[in-house]
């Protein structure tokens, strides 16, 4: 959009507002996940949804656009004060730090390298001397194998979420801000990708391109996973862009880019950020599911999903094959979900 004089821009913005704003809602409870909300639902929600942290925080600064950022900062500061006192926060944080360390420096934790010094005679032996977690089907030390499996899950989970978040922020920001044809186009494309069933869609792509490694998996998961956050981001942008401080910034002569990145983005990102955190957990679970189905990572890659895939045949007699990777997987996913949960609570003063 070219630079309009303040008046003209203002008018176009307010003319645009009714049809676009009514289509989305400022997401208050993330459990209501934008993915599940049809347009109609969003319409009412828009009207009934109470103001959330970022809304109120955004309104405070009034007419001085410079203070919008400070208010955004204090929102996060408040959240941090709240988080510091939560046991759940520290517990998930500790688990995630340990998992992150395992992913970054597996050799510190594991006794053996991946698929190293395996002894087929020890195949499937349960926990015992020298191997706290027992041995896997190839007779490798299961503890070492599980530690090495951490990297695949954490890396894919984080990488997919980061890429999806970047796409979501870009599309949501531009679509929500400019509206019109661009917005309609983005929304319909989002609908298309949203309509593809996850497991089947991923399976089709992964089978079509065999011999894929971690980055191909990441790509597929991003392709099928960017829609939820994009919808949420767009809704947030639309809710924020009609606020007084945006109008104030525009009247002071701020350009589109400055308004988008300095004023709207900081005030719209909080709930998207929370969903991103929850998303890491979901991606990890999804990746493990694909591994488990046999279409994801392949031997000699090491991942929890692959270990569970092997375990499915033997779990009745050798439960340790199923229990240990499942435990690690669940603990990691759970930590991301709980972290997202407490951060949401901290950002949302309604629940205090």
């Amino acid at each position, binding site marked *: 959009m070219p630079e309009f004089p303040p008046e003209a821009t203002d008018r176009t913005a307010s003319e645009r507002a009714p049809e676009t704003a*009514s289509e989305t809602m400022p997401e208050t*409870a993330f*459990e*209501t*996940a934008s*993915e*599940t*909300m*049809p*347009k*109609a*639902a969003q*319409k*009412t*929600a828009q*009207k009934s949804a*109470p103001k959330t942290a970022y809304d109120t925080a955004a309104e405070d600064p009034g007419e001085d656009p410079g203070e919008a950022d400070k208010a955004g900062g204090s929102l996060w500061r408040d959240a941090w004060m709240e988080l510091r006192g939560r046991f759940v926060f520290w517990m998930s944080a500790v688990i995630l730090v340990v998992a992150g360390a395992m992913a970054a420096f597996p050799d510190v934790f594991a006794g053996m390298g991946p698929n190293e010094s395996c002894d087929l005679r020890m195949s499937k032996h349960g926990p015992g001397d020298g191997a706290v977690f027992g041995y896997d089907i190839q007779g490798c030390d299961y503890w070492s194998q599980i530690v090495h499996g951490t990297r695949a899950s954490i890396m894919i989970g984080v990488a997919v979420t980061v890429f999806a978040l970047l796409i979501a922020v870009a599309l949501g920001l531009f679509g929500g801000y400019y509206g019109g044809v661009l917005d309609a186009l983005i929304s*319909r494309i989002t*609908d*298309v990708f949203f*309509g*593809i*069933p*996850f*497991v*089947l*869609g991923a*399976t*089709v*792509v992964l*089978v*079509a391109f065999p011999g894929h490694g971690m980055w191909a998996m990441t790509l597929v998961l991003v392709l099928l996973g960017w829609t939820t956050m994009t919808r949420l981001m767009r809704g947030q942008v639309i809710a924020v862009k009609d606020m007084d401080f945006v109008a104030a910034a525009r009247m002071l002569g701020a350009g589109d880019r400055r308004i988008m990145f300095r004023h709207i983005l900081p005030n719209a990102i909080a709930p998207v950020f929370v969903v991103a955190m929850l998303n890491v*957990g979901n991606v990890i*679970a999804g990746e*493990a*599911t694909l591994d*488990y*189905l046999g*279409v994801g990572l392949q031997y000699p890659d090491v991942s929890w999903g692959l270990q*569970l895939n092997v375990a*499915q045949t033997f*779990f*009745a007699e050798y*439960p340790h094959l*199923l229990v240990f990777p*499942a435990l690690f*997987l*669940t603990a990691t*996913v*759970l930590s991301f*979900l*709980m972290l997202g*949960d407490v951060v949401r609570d901290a950002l949302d003063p309604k629940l205090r």
Partner: protein
Amino acid sequence: MRYAVQRLIQAVPVFVVTTFLIYTMVFALPGDPILALAGDKPVPEQVLDVLRERYHLNDPLLVQYGYYMLGVFRGDLGETFTGQPVSELLQDRWAVTAQLAVTAWIFELVVGIGLGVLAGLRRGGAADTAVLAGTTFVIAVPVFVVGYTAQILFGLNLGLFPTAGTDEGWPVSYLLPGMVLGSFGLAYVARLTRTSLVENLRADYVRTATAKGLGRRRIVGLHALRNSLIPVVTYLGIDFGNLMAGAVVTEGIFNLPGIGQQVFQSIQLQEGPVVVGVVTLLVMIFIVANLVVDLLYGVLDPRIRRA
């Protein structure tokens, strides 16, 4: 009414593009299906040409897709490369998946809303904490781990349910798989109901009702709950499509001969027509479910019709 038509028109391009995308992806699978059909034996060029002509394999992809969609709307999902109609192949399997999905769905609906109400009425209480912790846990454990654990525990060790197969018919054989499949959605429904109820109990109209002297039961049951369930109904509606599509894993664990199992085998055997057929139908279900929910919404919430 204008609203309904508008939503319908929006759904059409989404449907076309989604199915075309799936169609392209599936038929981009490497390998020549006609040659694969012949196996090791050399095939005369003429035979190849006739077969290619018959399956429109020489036409551009867009034209092939056009032929295909025409067939779909006539109830013809095409044939597998061995000549068996896809619709015939899927007929019995749809029933299995549908039964499974319905079981899971009822489970989500009844138990999920029940737990949500229990938790929402006493926010911060013991039941609330338990529901919140339990549902977070259920969401975090991947469905195949839940499946195997349930199978060992309730099927094998306790013998409460059949472990696998559909021998005992609906509902007995479908109870355990249904619960496993529905566990994720159940957790969502419970949390959604809880959040929504908590918010509604704080609304002005509830205070008004209390001030008028209405009983607690009437306030919750008639006023708050009815409004709280609006987003839940939405989720339940859309989730039905997810349940149908997400049954692959559950069907595998409990050895239920549904479409999930079939389509998974077909993907690995590169039987494109079956894959596209199933996914197209699933996308249709998904989009129709979305539409129905949208329209239902207008009925549940008069504000939408007037908007």
